[in-house]
């Protein structure tokens, strides 16, 4: 196909209102004139909705921001409330929360890799045809996903919108026996993960070899691969305490997006699995590092398409680290707690920040409470919002490199780019409706 000289892009998003983005591309005489990434999703106003609500409800309400990272939102919310009121949680509860976060990381990453990325790599529209051509592989993905879901249920009460996670700890915890059974399932899942890694390795040639230098931001911790806790870290500027997050996120509103955008040291930055891997590679579990080596993935990787592979590496890390955490809980002897555990919290006025790494990147909740424990102010910064600016710049850099390709390939490459960021489950599939005329 010859090079398109004049190309207009019409965006149709009428059939999909919430949870997706659009791409506007305009090409004149073979040159990119316009390349715009916009977010038309229905605004939901959570920051305002929680004002006036009580300290023991905020984690429940903010969980509803996102079905797929509801555990992450709940944990960020609890951390912010606990920071505001000076509440300490026990070492045991900390480990159980880290397990809950691993469960979500597994759940989310496996869904993204198996259901959303794999169809692109295999040249089909969904996982449904793959279930007929490669049933064995699909069953492996489903089994891994089920294990992740069972782990979420074990720690949180159910897979989405956790029940057991409450300020100060847990309303209910798993038994030693249940944890040991989960460890067995995690151990058994390692060969399955290796099979999935092999499958992706065989298809990795389908990821575009595209690079663009940018800034990566994630939590970082000298004691381990930072997910639940850590300092703010940037590949450009080093580390800072999480309370300084506003100096990093610098949110701004743009007309074409109901989601806010963010920038720090450059015009945009990236958060997510690739940012974490770029900043904390040495803290990955041994097998996770091996999987990274299979794909020659090492810091600093500037190919955003490799975010999916970074997620694959993280699934292996989450499995190995979960086994370690269960071993430690077992060795220390699991302390029982009363049924309907009530954590007896002394309510006081204050402000607190909760920062946590969720599947799509760093998430911040900040609350201010009055002396009755009623929220008077809230600020929430979502990973996907932080990535919008970077997605937009990647598109602008990628498009000139693929202008001579057939229209379908241009479309697919741009969609794959957006999907690589795993912006949110609803927008990851058919996120970008592009019509090149």
């Amino acid at each position, binding site marked *: 196909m010859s090079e398109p000289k004049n190309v207009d892009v019409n965006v149709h998003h009428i059939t999909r209102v919430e*949870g997706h983005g659009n791409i506007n591309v305009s090409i004149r005489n073979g040159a990119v004139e316009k390349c715009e990434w916009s977010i038309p999703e229905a605004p939901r106003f959570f*920051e305002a909705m929680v004002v006036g609500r009580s300290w023991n409800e905020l984690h429940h*309400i903010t969980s509803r921001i996102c079905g797929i990272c509801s555990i992450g939102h709940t944990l960020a919310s609890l951390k912010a409330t606990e920071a505001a009121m000076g509440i300490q949680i026990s070492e045991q509860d900390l480990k159980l929360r880290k397990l809950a976060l691993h469960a979500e990381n597994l759940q989310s990453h496996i869904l993204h890799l198996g259901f959303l990325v794999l169809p692109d790599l295999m040249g089909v529209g969904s996982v449904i045809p793959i279930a007929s051509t490669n049933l064995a592989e699909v069953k492996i993905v489903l089994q891994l996903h089920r294990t992740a879901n069972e782990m979420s249920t074990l720690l949180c009460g159910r897979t989405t919108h956790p029940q057991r996670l409450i300020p100060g700890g847990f309303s209910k915890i798993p038994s030693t026996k249940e944890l040991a059974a989960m460890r067995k399932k995690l151990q058994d899942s390692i060969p399955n993960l290796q099979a999935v890694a092999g499958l992706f390795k065989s298809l990795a040639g389908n990821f575009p070899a595209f690079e663009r230098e940018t800034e990566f931001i994630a939590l970082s911790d000298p004691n381990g691969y930072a997910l639940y806790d850590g300092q703010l870290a940037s590949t450009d500027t080093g580390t800072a305490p999480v309370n300084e997050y506003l100096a990093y996120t610098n949110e701004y509103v743009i007309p074409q997006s109901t989601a806010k955008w963010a920038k720090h040291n450059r015009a945009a930055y990236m958060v997510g699995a690739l940012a974490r891997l770029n900043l904390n590679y040495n803290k990955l579990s041994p097998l996770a590092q091996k999987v990274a080596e299979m794909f020659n993935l090492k810091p600093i990787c500037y190919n955003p398409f490799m975010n999916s592979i970074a997620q694959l590496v993280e699934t292996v890390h989450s499995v190995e680290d979960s086994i370690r955490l269960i071993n430690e809980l077992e060795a220390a002897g699991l302390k029982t707690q009363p049924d309907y555990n009530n954590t007896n919290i002394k309510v006081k006025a204050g402000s607190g920040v909760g920062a946590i790494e969720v599947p799509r990147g760093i998430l911040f909740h900040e609350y201010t409470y009055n002396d009755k424990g009623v929220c008077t102010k809230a600020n929430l910064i979502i990973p996907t919002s932080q990535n919008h600016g970077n997605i937009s710049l990647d598109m602008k850099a990628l498009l000139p490199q693929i202008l001579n390709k057939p229209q379908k390939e241009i479309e697919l490459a741009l969609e794959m780019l957006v999907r690589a960021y795993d912006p949110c489950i609803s927008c990851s599939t058919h996120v970008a409706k592009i019509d090149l005329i």
Partner: protein
Amino acid sequence: MKPKVAFFDFAGCEGDQLQIANLEEDLLDLLGQVEVVTFREVMKEQSDNYDIAFVEGSCTRLQDEDRLKQIRKNAKLVVAIGSCAAIGGINSLRNYKDLDSVKKMVYGENARLFDSYAARPIDAVIPVDAYVYGCPIDREDFLQVVKSLLLGKKPETATYPVCVECKKNENVCAFERGQFCVGTVTRAGCNSCCVNEGTICWGCRGLIDNPNENSQKEVLIKYGLTIDDAISKFRLYFGWQEAKR
């Protein structure tokens, strides 16, 4: 011929469609019974030719109404899935705020760019044939509703409160534990899952059709609680239902 089904979402967290993806092996079985023609969470293809539409999320803007009406026109059956679509859900918390100031709080001086009105369930805009309640929906519950619809039956909905299920489960009453629970007036069908997990019922399945107001007052008096306590808790999920009453 297999019935064609489609999934749609409005303002919500996509957590209900996620429960369908989470059916795992059962999803493969379900795919043997129906043909999924539109489901953005898992597929790229889409079509306007479908028999059953499953809709998640609340209607929060005028522009959503046109899309809902189109879905109604295309589908033989419309099913609301999850609290946001079925009862308005947690989104209706914002209905108690002055929306202009809410928009200013979130978007600052750019607030005028974003059109939005009071969050409402989809049956405030179009007729709905069946409901799957809950935040999120229960996967089994969803399958039961689908089975009923495929057999041409109207799905059964509990008309009694969560309290009944909770007593059967022999949970210690949340009020006895010093907490406020909405299970006295919330539609059952969840098997009191949140209380079973050690917490309270938050009301996510919505107000039952005929709540016993006198016995609710007795509960408040017995445990030294106020009407304001009750209203505050009810507003987490019942906002739209309260406005209608």
